[in-house]
């Protein structure tokens, strides 16, 4: 049955609130395509998003979707996975959600390495509040809250994740749908915490980091050949180099997942029989006699 599913089967009837031309459309259609190509079914997909323009994506993907509070998508997604390891769990949010208000959870989810996928839709601005500087905005970026130019250095999310022990790091561009689908598919299939940062231009507020700008300022790490995503120092070099932004699978390793280190049982917690096990608890009282 799953072979018959198409991206349309992952669509909802809810009309989008995004501006025409928003990069997030590309992310959404790549996600639907990737899930269909992987043979996933909506009932087994849990999709958790944060707050912001990007956070609205959970309303547009037919699945068990969770649109929580700002910055906390990763703790929710981690626990959904622990509760039911049979689910395909994907979290999504923007650069503000993941690298500002949710930065702590980002770092600690990298450390934990649960088998979930995180899509960071990076538009280098706060779109839904009308264009303030974000954690990935360039220094000097002029906005309503930074009229004298953004004084902060932009965060390099993937480099931070690599330093913290990230087991799968990829970056895509929402205007390259085919490559983005492949990246998301590879990420979902990765056993561990897979991060896909997607350059997703804000056509309304970010007049610097436009589609044309990204086309000029990005390259794929496997373009030239010889790039080994299993080599951590290669990955650091690529992520920290001045100049063009690297795209593609930048790093991957086989570090054990949270589920394996916690010795999570095969049976999902959600399907445990709670009544049946009650008699086992009587004996615990002996400890207190």
């Amino acid at each position, binding site marked *: 049955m799953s072979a018959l599913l198409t991206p349309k089967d992952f669509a909802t009837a809810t009309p989008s609130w995004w501006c025409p031309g928003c990069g997030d459309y590309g992310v959404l259609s790549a996600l639907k395509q990737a899930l269909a190509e992987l043979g996933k079914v909506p009932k087994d997909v849990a999709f958790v998003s944060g707050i912001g323009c990007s956070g609205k994506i959970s309303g547009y993907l037919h699945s068990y979707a969770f*649109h929580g509070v700002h910055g906390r998508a990763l703790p929710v997604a981690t*626990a*959904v996975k622990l509760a039911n390891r049979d689910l395909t769990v994907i979290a999504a949010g923007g650069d503000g959600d993941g690298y500002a208000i949710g930065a702590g959870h980002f770092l*600690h989810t990298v450390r934990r390495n649960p088998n979930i996928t995180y899509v960071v839709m990076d538009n280098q601005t706060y779109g839904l509040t009308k264009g303030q500087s974000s954690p990935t905005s360039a220094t000097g970026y002029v906005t309503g809250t930074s009229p004298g130019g953004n004084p902060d250095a932009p965060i390099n999310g993937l480099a931070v994740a690599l330093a913290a022990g990230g087991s799968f790091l990829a970056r895509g561009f929402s205007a390259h749908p085919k490559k983005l689908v492949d990246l998301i598919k590879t990420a979902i299939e990765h056993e561990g915490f897979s991060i896909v940062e997607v350059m997703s231009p804000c056509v309304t507020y970010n007049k610097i980091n436009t589609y044309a700008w990204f086309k000029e300022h990005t390259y794929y790490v496997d373009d030239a050949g010889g790039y080994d995503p299993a080599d951590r120092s290669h990955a650091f070099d690529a992520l920290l180099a001045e100049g063009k932004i690297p795209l593609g699978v930048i790093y991957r390793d086989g570090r054990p997942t949270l589920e394996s280190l916690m010795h999570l049982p095969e049976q999902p917690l*959600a399907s445990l029989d*709670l009544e049946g096990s*009650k008699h*086992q*608890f009587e004996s615990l009282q002996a400890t207190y006699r």
Partner: protein
Amino acid sequence: MILNDIEIMFGGQAGDGSLTTGDLIAGIFKKLGLEVYTYKDFPSRIRGGHTNYVIRAGEHANYGMADLVDALIAFDLEAVEAHIEELRPGGFIIFDSTTETVPESMRRRDVTWYDVPLAKIAKEDLGLELVRNTISLGVLAKLIGMDRATVRDAVAGVYERKGEKVVGLNIRAVEAGGEYVERHFGEWPSGYGLQARPDGDRLLMMGNDAIAYGALVAGCRFMAGYPITPATDVLEWMAKYLPKYGGVAVQAEDELAAINMVLGAAFAGVRSMTATSGPGQALMTEAIGLAGVLEIPVVVIECARTGPSTGMPTKTEQSNLNHLIFSGHGEIPRVVLAPGTVEDSFYISAKAFDIAEKYQCPVFVLTEQALCQSKATLPLLDVASVSVDRGKLVTEPVTFGEYERFEFTEDGVSPRIIPGIEGGMHLAAGSEHSPQGVITENAANRTAMMDKRMRKLVSMREDLPKAIVHGDPAAEIAIFGYGSNRGPIVEAIDRLERGGVSVRFFEFRTLWPFPEEEVAAFAAEAQHIFVVENDFTGQLERLIRYVTGPLERMHLVNKYNGKPFRPIEIIEPIERLALLRGPESVDGGSPDGEPVRVKRQ
């Protein structure tokens, strides 16, 4: 003089073993068939700083602290200085005289002094200074005429897991303490003694353990928490036991993550909880609102301590009541339950999961340091009586398009489906949404959806734990209170009753939704109403006044110095204000030297 009641205090420096010795003797008193309550008074540091451990033992179950201390075991001079005024006339002090001497000016004449070089005996006779705690136990046991074999057995039982060598050493230590007393002070010199009884089928358990145990039995299989005093015991207990039953306990990076993890696991269909204290509770506030609007069942254990901010992290207070009831932007249905004993902590904790799941909302279990970190004796827990009612949980496939996760229903509760089940796909959004879960700002939908959610507060009424009314139901004097104050209030009532004064006590077990009708009925015929609580502003008293209106004879008896009530602090204002006897002063003295504020409305 055989008593049926004794209060013993071990005082020393944090990390020197006072708490271990306290635990040891609490276990021994339990084996002697006595009812036991313990209270830990320790500083927020690991090594050094005065600490003490109080053990109340006797025939009365679930009293709290006594008015005064009968026996003080002082491991240093600081313990004497700190607590000499709390001793009952006729009581006694065991003082470790190895390196310090009690100045004559400090030696109260109405108590007996037993100077024993505990550390010296430990070092010279037993070769290990650490065992001075066990020696002190031997001294105490001899002084109060405890049965030698019982004490030996209990010591052996406590150290059994550490091997024969440790057991042998501690038995020699306890004997050495007894022998020292015989040689220097004679046989049973204090005259204090306790009437032993058969132990029977009973437990000695800490409040936090009872809460965790109740949660496990009720089917909680996921916990996420962040270490915080005095709630950490719950996470440690669950981390130890949950994996054995297929569950998971996660130490999160902060309370924000902890509560959001609990939401995630509960969304996926697992009974889930967290445990925290004031500062962590404050951080969880936003996500609690999310649980309310997403209609996700979550259980939050609040182990209250003094606030605001860091406050006094290891001291007790009830000042988080308003926070639990009113915190958060927007309005959600929520439940606040409060156990009054360790035993009730088990049942209330277990019940919280049924209420949370039946009514799909956050449920708080409110306890405080003086109860959750205290041990008490209790009858065997009735594990079989714990129900697991999952309410309107949908476990079979539904038809997509027909199924409505947030369906408008008469009782406000909608059928709840979990990921993995065919047909139930939907968006759970913190934004206002339609019955299907689609985000909408439609005004009529908003009103209907708010009405639906808030209706649950009415439909859940019958399921909420009922208040317990203690004492003579016809008494003219009435007390309201909850939580750890149950013990001292019940003792105050018993003592007043013995003096011919009838008092009744309404012990709240559900604090929200507020039991308005029951409170109004209880207050109606009372001539005097006393509201006993550990806070400054009288948070409970104000809730009661919402219901009753201002009452001429309503008195707030409150305390906020970090220490639990002693019964005299409840008896005194009743005698003065309701019985018009006793001192005329507005401030009654209390054993720990702090005034008790009593005001007339």
